[in-house]
């Protein structure tokens, strides 16, 4: 392997009382990567991040930071910095004092600290507020200072614990771009924790989807979205429709299945799918409605319609199974389907996916 790993998580388990937070989790995070740990609350993502920072220790297994075991190294000796969810800026210090804190502890000389603090505050557009206290800032501004403070000591890895969750929608969008460009410019490995799948898909080089203390899937955003390996990932990332299907034949990432609507089709499937009962997953936007239908075809009744401007979402009833479909309103006349009517629904074979039940 040519590229060095920034972080290696090796067979890590952690229990809190009877609650199993992590069950033998292993993965690598590469150098200069924007890596996201995505999952619902309680999936263990924050516990893993706190282990990398040094605030938790694994019950079993080990963690390596640039080929060095760090389990027994206290937080203040790890070249890792954290952007906390609540920002955790020191309220009694000015912004420049906050940013300088880590550099002073590293023993940098005064002139170098001053230059670095100025540079970092400028980088996050907060240089004109250097003398202010955190209480005088808005949430977005505090976020920027927290970033500057964590990046100033040039950590080997930057840990971000749901840093955008406290911001309003507009600001969150802007901060995504900001974070992404900061990561590219600095070349520092970012490990980002979130429960927001859109954030994860938007910013990450790779995503680890965590569920019930285990890694469910690791891959690029499009792999996670288009090729989920199990029901959990397909369900948690984006919206999807599930149908029960019978697998007649399975081999080589393909499975021949009989749909509830009678057709026998061959569609993509991960390796763990075998003959018998399985689940077919198809995303709402991959269903075609009305006269656009191509590929697999069945009819359904329109139950509800949600007009959202750019898109219209439909809730359909196909022989007792609820289906969600969405259609882009490409032209003004596009929306001719009315509630209560029967429509043709269809999808092309390779846009669906068979998953083990």
């Amino acid at each position: 392997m040519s590229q060095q790993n920034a972080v290696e998580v090796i067979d890590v388990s952690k229990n809190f009382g009877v609650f199993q937070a992590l069950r033998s989790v292993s993965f690598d995070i590469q150098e200069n990567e924007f890596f996201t740990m995505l999952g619902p609350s309680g999936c263990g993502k924050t516990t893993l991040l706190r282990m990398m920072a040094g605030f938790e220790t694994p019950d079993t297994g080990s963690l390596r930071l640039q080929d060095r075991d760090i389990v027994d190294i206290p937080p203040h000796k790890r070249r890792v910095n954290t952007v906390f969810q609540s920002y955790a800026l020191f309220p009694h210090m000015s912004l420049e004092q906050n940013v300088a804190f880590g550099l002073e502890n590293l023993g940098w000389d005064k002139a170098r600290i001053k230059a670095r603090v100025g540079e970092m505050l400028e980088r996050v557009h907060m240089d004109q507020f250097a003398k202010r206290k955190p209480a005088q800032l808005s949430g977005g501004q505090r976020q920027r200072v927290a970033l500057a403070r964590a990046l100033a000591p040039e950590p080997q890895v930057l840990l971000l614990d749901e840093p955008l969750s406290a911001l309003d929608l507009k600001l969150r969008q802007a901060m995504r771009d900001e974070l992404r460009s900061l990561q590219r410019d600095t070349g520092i490995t970012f490990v980002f924790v979130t429960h927001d799948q859109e954030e994860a898909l938007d910013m990450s080089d790779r995503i680890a989807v965590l569920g019930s203390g285990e890694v469910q899937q690791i891959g690029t955003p499009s792999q996670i979205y288009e090729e989920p390996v199990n029901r959990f990932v397909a369900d948690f990332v984006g919206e999807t429709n599930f149908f029960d299907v019978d697998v007649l034949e399975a081999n080589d990432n393909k499975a021949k299945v009989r749909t509830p609507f009678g057709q026998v089709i061959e569609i993509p499937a991960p390796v763990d799918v075998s003959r018998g009962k399985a689940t077919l997953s198809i995303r709402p936007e991959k269903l075609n409605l009305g006269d656009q239908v191509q590929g697999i075809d069945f009819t359904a009744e329109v139950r509800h319609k949600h007009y959202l401007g750019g898109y219209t979402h439909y809730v359909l009833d196909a022989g007792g199974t609820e289906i969600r479909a969405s259609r882009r309103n490409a032209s003004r006349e596009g929306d001719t389907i009315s509630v209560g009517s029967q429509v043709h629904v269809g999808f092309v074979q390779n846009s669906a996916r068979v998953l083990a039940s």
Partner: protein
Amino acid sequence: MSDTAHTAHASAGASPARRRPLNLAYLGLLPSWLIMGFALLLPILIVAAVSVSTRGAYGGFEWGFDLTGYSQILFNEGWEGEMEFTPQYLIIILRTIVLAALTTLLCLVLAVPVSYFIAQQSSSRKALLVYLVTLPFWMSLILRVYAWMIILGKDGPLPRFLEVFGAPSGLSLMYNDGATLAAMVYTYIPLMVLPVFASIEKLDGTLIEAAHDLYGNRWVTLRRVILPLTAPGIISGAILVFVPALGAVLEPILMGGGKQMMMGSLIQLQFGGGRNWPFGSAIAVMLLVFVMIVLIILALRAARKEAAA
């Protein structure tokens, strides 16, 4: 309420009706004003008045205006009416201030780790530990000081324990400044623990994590994050310990054996055996003024900090 006031106003047709309920509301404060007046202000005024009175021939005092009580703090009147500088009372005052300051410092050094420990416990254990800290208050101070006399006294548990490490037998640790200090720290430490605990508990734990994350070791974290952010609790704890420690009477007499006079026992003596009420009152007023000055300085500093934040 504003509705009924409005209709009453309309029917009466007089404008002052609007203010009347407010005036009545002030009457509700009367009990507190009475308590403040009779229990706090009046005694202070009496002491101040006595301090500028003339000493009675057989104890007590006679009304008048005489500053002898104050001049006696520093000067002694000789046989021929000449004023001689006498440092003996000044020494007592300074010794008292040093003892109170040492008590405050020791209480602080002990209270910070204790409070930190309590703050990290689960909420049910927190409640129990805070209750245990306040437990000594349920017992009479005299009993508690006598307990210390037994612990430190001849054949007491502590000297016996020290004998194991080669201390001479029959050792007594009683009747010295150290014994006084030990009892003082013991007496006043709950007054330090409670406010310090309250401010440490309010402290956001992620700030401590952030300090460690930014390469701060324990000492740096304590000095630059924990102490500055818990300063309000530490200051109120210091006031709560320092002020009563200045006036402590029981501990210096019982534990110190009365060998070393303190301000509290000096004042007491003037109203008893010394039969010099104006002098006793003058020392009391001086003590009061000293404490007020300290408190005003601290309050001004706190206000300035608040304004800066």
